[in-house]
């Protein structure tokens, strides 16, 4: 069979290596390689989407690697990972299109993004835990260099904090992976085997689950392990923020489903009420913290904490529930990952476009921009409405299912976290009102609207926001088949 998965996975890396060797590449040529490689990857991801995914793992490709240790190169997809692969390919293409005007060390910039793309795809596609961990750590290294190399004023500190925080988080993951390996009989790192028969029981399972939870809670991030996020986001370059929020946070929630929920289900079930408490608090905390921000980028960053809290709540409800509610909550959680990627990606791009023009992100500095920059304004309004959960836009079907699924298990938790939506609605409406409505001051009269490059990056995301919101079935069907299988 044609190894589409492997080719899609390593296409970006190929682009990165090409740029590493091609030392005389001009910034234009470097960006051309970047856009081309990420576009081809998007085509590959589309091909994988057309092939589809059933209830279990499909499109599996494997090669022996270290048979003595039960390690192999195994990649494949199921209904949980396939939408995330599509999301990753899309957001990287959008980010690279958006950054084509970046001339400062463009060759290194594009190669790091392409390396990061392969690493992110690899995390979603790996069906072997050693491979999973390899890709997981490479995302960290690539992102560190992106923030440290092309970030804003305080980038060194933010990058260092990001690196140390997430490395500290990923090492418990390594321990948990080793525990899963040593608990399996015969010893293997094969995800399919570990999912089919969760290897650990009792205290060992609980400890492994704890390691997984810490690792993924840092990445998501979940309160109280979220403190790296606002700084990393505000200091990262725009495209870096898009990828960080749109894709890297999903690595944490994906891991929560794939490893914690599927490989230590009983331990997760026992700990579910506590985790749900953290998730609800995290969602509310993110909403209220976002309410307190005047910097637009920080505001969007904090709403990520809020939305990821809902994802964690959905997965946790699935761990606690039995039967139909389980699949419902899990459907919602996975769809929420996709929606958040699209919506927050476009929000960060829009804030980045605004900052490129105005050289500030302070809400108070703006007023009435809708008159000067209508395209930017309306696209922002659309994304903001989607982010606050308006029916008909991407977040609504996801959050609706999460709350419905949670309600069956913990009615109070569902009720409290719905309150978070009211807060996000308030803060987004306030932001729209301040920045885009009101009187347009003279200093912003000549602010140019979005150019073709920015529209090419943002409009596809906006279109998807509507498409997922109006007719979520085309994504949900894929997710549901896998979620139902996990539900049993």
């Amino acid at each position, binding site marked *: 069979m044609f190894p589409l998965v492997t080719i899609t996975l390593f296409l970006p890396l190929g682009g990165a290596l090409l740029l590493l060797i091609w030392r005389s590449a001009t910034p234009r040529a470097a960006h051309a390689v970047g856009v081309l490689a990420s576009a081809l990857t998007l085509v590959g991801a589309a091909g994988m989407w057309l092939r589809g995914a059933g209830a279990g793992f499909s499109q599996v490709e494997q090669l022996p690697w270290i048979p003595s*240790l039960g390690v192999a190169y195994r990649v494949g997809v199921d209904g949980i990972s396939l939408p995330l692969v599509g999301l990753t390919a899309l957001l990287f293409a959008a980010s690279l299109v958006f950054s084509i005007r970046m001339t400062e060390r463009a060759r290194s910039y594009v190669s790091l993004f392409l390396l990061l793309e392969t690493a992110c795809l690899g995390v979603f596609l790996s069906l072997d835990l050693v491979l999973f961990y390899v890709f997981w750590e490479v995302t960290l290294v690539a992102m560190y260099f992106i923030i440290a190399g092309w970030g804003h004023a305080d980038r060194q500190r933010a990058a260092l904090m990001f690196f*140390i925080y997430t490395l500290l988080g990923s090492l418990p993951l390594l*321990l948990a992976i080793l525990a899963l390996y040593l608990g399996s009989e015969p010893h293997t790192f094969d995800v399919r085997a570990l999912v089919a028969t969760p290897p650990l029981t009792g205290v060992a399972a609980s400890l492994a689950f704890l390691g997984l939870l810490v690792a993924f809670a840092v990445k998501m991030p979940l309160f109280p392990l979220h403190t790296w996020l606002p700084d990393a986001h505000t200091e990262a370059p725009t495209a870096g923020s898009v990828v960080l929020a749109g894709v890297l946070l999903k690595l944490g929630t994906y891991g929560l489903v794939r490893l914690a929920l599927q490989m230590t289900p009983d331990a997760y079930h026992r700990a579910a009420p506590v985790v749900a408490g953290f998730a609800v608090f995290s969602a509310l905390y993110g909403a209220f913290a976002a309410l307190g921000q005047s910097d637009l980028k920080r505001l969007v960053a904090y709403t990520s904490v809020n939305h990821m809290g809902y994802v964690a709540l959905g997965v946790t409800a699935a761990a606690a529930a039995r039967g139909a509610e389980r699949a419902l909550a899990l459907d919602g959680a996975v769809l929420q990952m996709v929606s958040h990627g699209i919506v927050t990606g476009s929000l960060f791009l829009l804030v980045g476009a605004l900052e490129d023009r105005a050289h500030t992100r302070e809400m108070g500095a703006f007023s009435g921009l809708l008159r000067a920059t209508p395209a930017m304004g309306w696209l922002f309004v659309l994304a903001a409405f989607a982010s606050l959960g308006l029916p008909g836009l991407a977040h609504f079907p996801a959050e609706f299912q999460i709350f419905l699924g949670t309600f069956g298990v913990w009615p109070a938790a569902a009720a409290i976290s719905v309150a978070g939506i009211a807060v996000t609605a308030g803060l987004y409406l306030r932001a729209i009102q301040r920045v885009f409505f009101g009187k347009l001051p003279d200093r912003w009269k000549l602010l140019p609207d979005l150019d073709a490059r920015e529209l090419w990056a943002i409009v596809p995301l906006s279109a998807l926001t509507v498409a997922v919101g109006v007719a979520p079935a085309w994504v949900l069907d894929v997710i549901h088949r896998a979620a139902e299988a996990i539900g049993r």
Partner: protein
Amino acid sequence: MMSGARMVHDLTLLSPELLALFTAAIALACEMLRRPRLALAITVLGLLLAAGLTGPLLLGKDTSVFMGTFRVDALGIWAKLVLLPTTALVAVLAYPEVRGTDREGTVYSLLAFTTLGALVLAAAGDVMFLVLGVLLSSLGSFALVAYPRDVRATEAAMKYFVFGSVSSAVMIFGLTYWFGATGSTLLSSLRVLGDVPLAAVAGLIAVLVGLGYKAAVVPFHFWAPDAYDGAPLAIAAYLSIVPKVGAIFALAQVARNLPAEAVNWRLLLAVLAVASMTYGNLAALVQTNLVRLMAYSSIAQVGYFLLGVVAVGASPLAVQSLVVFAAAYAAMNLGAFAVVARFGRDLEGWAGLGRSAPWTGLAMVIFLLSLVGVPPLGGFFGKLLLFGAAIDSGYAWLAVVAILNSVLSLGVYLRMIVPMYRQPKAAPAAARPLVFVGSVALAFTVAIGIGLQLVVSGLQ
């Protein structure tokens, strides 16, 4: 007595060691004839050939020669496969540093001799071989450290020598307890020590002093930063790898036979491991001289190594982890030293070098991330197996401490990475041998993970 046929059989199995010895002697003869470059060429070729002769041994079963005193097993064989090529690369690395000095050829000859000591240690099946290995590798090392004959080098060698002779004396003294209790010098006879715990403890402490000194394990590490800093850079790289791996493997040979009911040596080694990792990383955090930083880093790395020894006999991963980590460690540490040889010892001088010399900078980032244990680099696979071995033998807490130390070590190595990407300035030119050694080390650091099956398949 041994029969003639047996003797020939044993000597065949020892051919790599004999070739290394022969190489050292020929290199010395070349120096006497004032042909230092020929000495270098013979050293490199002889050591590589010895490594080549080791290859076929992998196919045979574990055995021993000279009535069990010298082992031909996975540890002994892999020590040869790793340390002989490493020594050849060190000789190449030393060439630009010692070229044109008096007695240049003796450096190459001493390198081969000293490596022989490390190989004897790694394959020891008898306490006499432990003593022989420690002495053989120490004597050569003293001379190598003192080679530049300036004040710093002399002071460094003096400290190293005093520390070394006291440690060796303690070791020999303590080993007499084992001999007294077992009536034999064979390690395999240690199993009777279960009945005489006091003698077991006394001997164990002695072995830990002697081998701990060789491997620079806390609290026997005090000589290391001074000796590394006073010695030529290539010799510092050498000391941080070859004797260290030899001593750790020797410790594993002892651990295979030492009964755990006589003395809880696993716990003792675990405590030493924690002390080494933690102290090494904390001390490295405040160094500005990069050779001293690498010295403390190698003290920390030996702590991870000890995880594998702790698991010997309790987990099938133990020997695999020691071998894989040794190979990865040799590659990444040698590579890091090769970059220090180009960029200089002073951290302040490193600002911007990563931008003006991008390939060297990238290589250094890879070596350092591998030392942290970031996948898919060699150091990660070594640590993965070490942690796995520790958890498998019931020392999960030790793996947790080791992991926290890995995070701490990130702070150490980022102190070298971050300044490299400041505003660029002109980088010093690279000597060709440095580039060569760096490239080989880089290739191994990156590729060990891909070819891991080759290493672990024979070690089940």
